[in-house]
């Protein structure tokens, strides 16, 4: 087996105001022809920078500081830029995460694929057209002839990603780099795209460098796995060995932090602290501050990537003496969480939210977008109802309609027996404290111009919680403590915090007015696995301590398995299946639920 792509000691640095940031710090890897090599890690670990360095597509502030990148026989780092352009697309191609921004909106899909072919081959005219058609068919584009002439906005996310893949494969590259190719897609579409990538790879014998944060995808796709942490590879292993017995403490933690049915009765393992800033010079192991097994030598001596077996290498002092035990396989038995007889706190009956489509000068309503079309559900006191669905199913709209942030078209929303629909702004005021919301994106949900203390006190002031400013200040301290933030956080601005910390602030803000029900709208989907574990643990602990009820809106079924008492599955504005978590996830009855469950890539 000869290496299609070989990286040796690759070092990439970014010039930032804080100093030189070593985004990729001595990465060695080689990928054989026909092999799928997965690069795993959390955000900021340098995996995308590694990919961009290979094709030399770094941002302006980035530069390659050392090492070599060999594609077959040529050293890519030694090539002049003009020659490099002939390599990109022809010998090594890349697929990006966001298909909606990776396609040019003013060119047809066919044209964009044709461009690659014309750039790298002698084909012209009708021959190019035939080739484009063939490619679009091979990536499973339905009605390829028609789609060729369409623009990106006319295609769904999954079809756009297929078009991207067609473009990347246009001239049979030897190496395909896929940077989180399915992260922006729904789980059923993700399954199709992964299937497609796998099929194309085996047909063409390409080397595939798959960059992902999802261990489920790795388990399904990869031949070999490398785990990156803080710019370094900390473990490389064949898939079976990696999944059976990960050796590096960080890899082990990644597995332990995965939510699922097995952890249902306990809390998830979380990695304490944060990734150290990559501008510092390290004198020891980069993981030492967050490692449970760290000992004196770890802080003093930089561990080397040591081979345990010829194919399995790990960067940890501990592994010099002994191998770690195999991972305890997660027993995926779904147990009903101790059910308390609880009365319904929130009852939703036949909720409909239509957005009118207006046309013409008089803006007459010519039709409706039925975002939510007759949803009924009930959230019992102190328990969690998970509302599951893919993007566009209307689940977020349900959440906002319950809080009357979007006024429902018809239907009833009752909180503790009181009807909320139709109430004016002033009338709603007395229910505002009882129901709160935590949003998905921790970067958009906090006002960047307000200090944390101001953010937390706003709701209290508006709803008259607390008996004065002194009392409120005390409450703020208590809240910060409750969500695990230092009291010093009060006087800082949101941008000074990481994503997970910001989500904690958002949760503290919701808790500030002592709600009984929190609508959690995908609160962990923008976070890394280890941070997600922290937030899920926090939510669960708060539920037990304060008796909160959650309406947990998500697309992530593993989170549902971990957290939910009851599950409702939404599709196109309607609930297709509803029941206890054990019933719905263990023995799904509706076809859509079954598809959804099957599409999730599983670690075990």
């Amino acid at each position, binding site marked *: 087996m000869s290496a299609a792509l070989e990286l040796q000691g690759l070092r990439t640095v970014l010039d930032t105001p804080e100093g030189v940031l070593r985004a990729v710090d001595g990465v060695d890897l080689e990928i054989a022809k026909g092999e799928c090599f997965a690069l795993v890690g959390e955000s900021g670990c340098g995996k995308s920078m590694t990919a961009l360095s290979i094709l030399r597509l770094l941002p302006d502030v980035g530069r390659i500081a050392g090492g070599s990148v060999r594609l077959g026989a040529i050293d890519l780092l030694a090539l002049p830029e003009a020659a490099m352009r002939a390599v990109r697309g022809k010998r090594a191609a890349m697929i990006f995460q966001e298909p909606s921004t990776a396609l040019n909106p003013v060119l047809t899909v066919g044209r964009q694929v044709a461009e690659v072919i014309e750039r790298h081959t002698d084909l012209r005219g009708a021959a190019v057209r035939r080739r484009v058609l063939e490619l679009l068919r091979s990536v499973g584009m339905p009605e390829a002839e028609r789609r060729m002439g369409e623009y990106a906005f006319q295609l769904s996310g999954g079809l756009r990603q297929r078009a991207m893949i067609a473009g990347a494969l246009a001239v049979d590259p030897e190496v395909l780099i896929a940077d989180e190719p399915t992260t922006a897609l729904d789980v059923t579409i993700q399954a199709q795209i992964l299937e497609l990538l796998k099929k194309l790879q085996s047909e063409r014998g390409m080397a595939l460098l798959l960059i992902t944060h999802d261990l489920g995808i790795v388990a399904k796709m990869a031949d070999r796995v490398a785990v990156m942490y803080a710019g370094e590879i900390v473990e490389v292993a064949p898939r079976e060995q990696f999944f059976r017995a990960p050796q590096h403490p960080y890899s082990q933690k990644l597995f332990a932090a995965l939510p699922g049915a097995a952890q249902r009765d306990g809390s998830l393992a979380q990695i304490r602290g944060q990734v150290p800033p990559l501008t510092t010079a390290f004198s020891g192991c980069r993981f030492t501050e967050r490692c449970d097994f760290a000992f004196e030598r770890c802080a003093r001596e930089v561990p080397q990537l040591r081979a345990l077996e010829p194919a399995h290498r790990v960067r940890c002092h501990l592994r010099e003496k002994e191998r770690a035990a195999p991972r305890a396989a997660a027993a995926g038995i779904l147990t009903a969480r101790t059910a308390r007889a609880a009365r319904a706190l929130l009852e939703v009956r036949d909720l409909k939210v239509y957005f009118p489509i207006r046309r013409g000068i008089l803006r007459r309503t010519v039709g409706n977008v039925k975002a939510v079309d007759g949803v009924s559900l009930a959230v019992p006191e102190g328990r969690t109802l998970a509302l599951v669905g893919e993007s566009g199913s209307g689940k977020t709209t349900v959440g906002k309609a319950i809080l009357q*942030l979007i006024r429902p078209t018809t239907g009833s929303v009752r909180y503790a027996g009181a009807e909320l629909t139709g109430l004016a702004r002033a009338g709603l005021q007395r229910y505002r404290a009882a129901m709160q*919301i935590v949003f998905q994106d921790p970067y958009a949900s906090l*006002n960047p*111009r307000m200090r944390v203390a101001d953010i937390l006190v706003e709701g209290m002031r508006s709803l008259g919680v607390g008996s004065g400013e002194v009392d409120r200040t005390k409450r703020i301290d208590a809240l910060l403590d409750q969500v695990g933030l230092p009291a010093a956080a009060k*006087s800082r601005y949101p941008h000074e915090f990481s994503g997970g910390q910001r989500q904690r602030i*958002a949760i503290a*803000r919701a808790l500030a*007015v002592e709600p009984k029900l929190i609508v959690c709208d995908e609160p962990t989907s923008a976070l890394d696995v280890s941070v997600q574990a922290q937030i899920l643990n926090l939510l669960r602990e708060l539920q037990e301590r304060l008796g909160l009820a959650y309406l947990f809106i998500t697309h992530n079924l593993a989170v549902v398995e971990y957290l939910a008492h009851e599950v409702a599955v939404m599709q196109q504005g309607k609930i297709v299946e509803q029941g206890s978590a054990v019933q719905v996830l263990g023995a799904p009855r509706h076809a859509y639920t079954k598809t959804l469950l099957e599409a999730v890539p599983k670690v075990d």
Partner: protein
Amino acid sequence: MPVVLATDLLVWLLVLTVAAFAWYCRRRAHLAAPWARVFRSRTAVAASVVLACYILVGLLDSLHYRPALPARDAGAVVAYSVEARSLLDRLLAPLRERSEKTYSAPLATRLYQREQVELADGRTAREFPRLRFGGAHLKAEADWGRDVALRTLAGLAAGAVLLGLALLAARGILVRRWPQVPWRAAAVALGFLLALAGPAVALAAGYHVLGTNQVGQDVLYQALKSIRTSLVIGTVTTLVLLPLGIAAGVAAGYFKGWVDDVIQYLYTTLNSIPGVLLIAAFVLMLQVFLDNHGDWFPTTAQRADMRLLGLCAILGLTSWTGLARLLRGEALKLSELEYIQAAHAFGVSHARVLARHILPNVAHIVIITLVLDFSGLVLAEAVLSYVGVGVDPSTTSFGTMINAARLEMAREPMVWWSLAAAFVFMFALVLAANLLADAVRDGFDPRVRV
């Protein structure tokens, strides 16, 4: 006798507001931090020094009084001149009073056009006569080169001494107080300005540094007087523009629905009327009004000032639409953001959402627009005065200077110094304002980490 012009009042009110705002910011760490970031930028500090000089001149020119006329006999009631002078006029009295007959080139000793002169022996000849004041102290015109060089050197030396004194004073107070500010940039800017100002002062004592205009007035004096007009137009106009633009734009974007429709119709209509036409109509109406009520104003300066104020008002009324449109778009985007939704979930009142969430998040747009508008307004004044619907002809402004210069460019030989002086002074002002605006934007946008 002190005279308070309407614009003087507004200018000093603005100064007070800015001072109060600065004091307010200093006491609040989260507001002081962005300003500290602004003044960590070298260009911002240099631009501030230049702007400060302009503002100093403008403020000196905003303290008016009517000089007492020399008493005819002791014990008579003191009579005051009908002409309002400013402190700047007093400082620049030599420049103002020493006017020539007509054009003379910068630093010239003779007029720029031939005249019939009667010679000592009774014959007449056409030649360039000597100036009444420019170089009049020279015994022989051949000394001109040496004299100019000596004065320039003396000016530079004086400038260097002043710079040295300023540096010593700064080291003691400013540098110790705010060590992170790049004072070196400030020193360089100040040194540059002093290197220009020193020789200019030294030369102005004996020459017309930037020449004279058609009626023999010193161009340097005119340029310095124009600064106040520009600053007034650029800042007082924003007093009208800001409330309208912010209120309309934010309300349209936040409340949407019929409020949005009404405001959009309003500014679309306003935008469709040619601005110059509207301003011309207004200024002509104002002119007629002022002519009919001449007795309201004891001095011509007050009348001219009322017209300047009117111009500011009408410029403000016609130029708020740009800001409103920008803010509407931003408010539309912001009002869908999750933190605004979270505020709604807390039942926070509209007024509070606007004040706490929307306004601070559009502040950087307001500041950028303001400073860009400042330059735009300074330039607009020039255009309007050129067309003849700008400031009162008796008010000195860059616009009236350029207006007067338009024929000079076609003259043979060309008279270039009026236009060049107006251009250089205006350019430096606008450039400094724009550079500062950039730094302010970078400092205030939390997403841009300097």
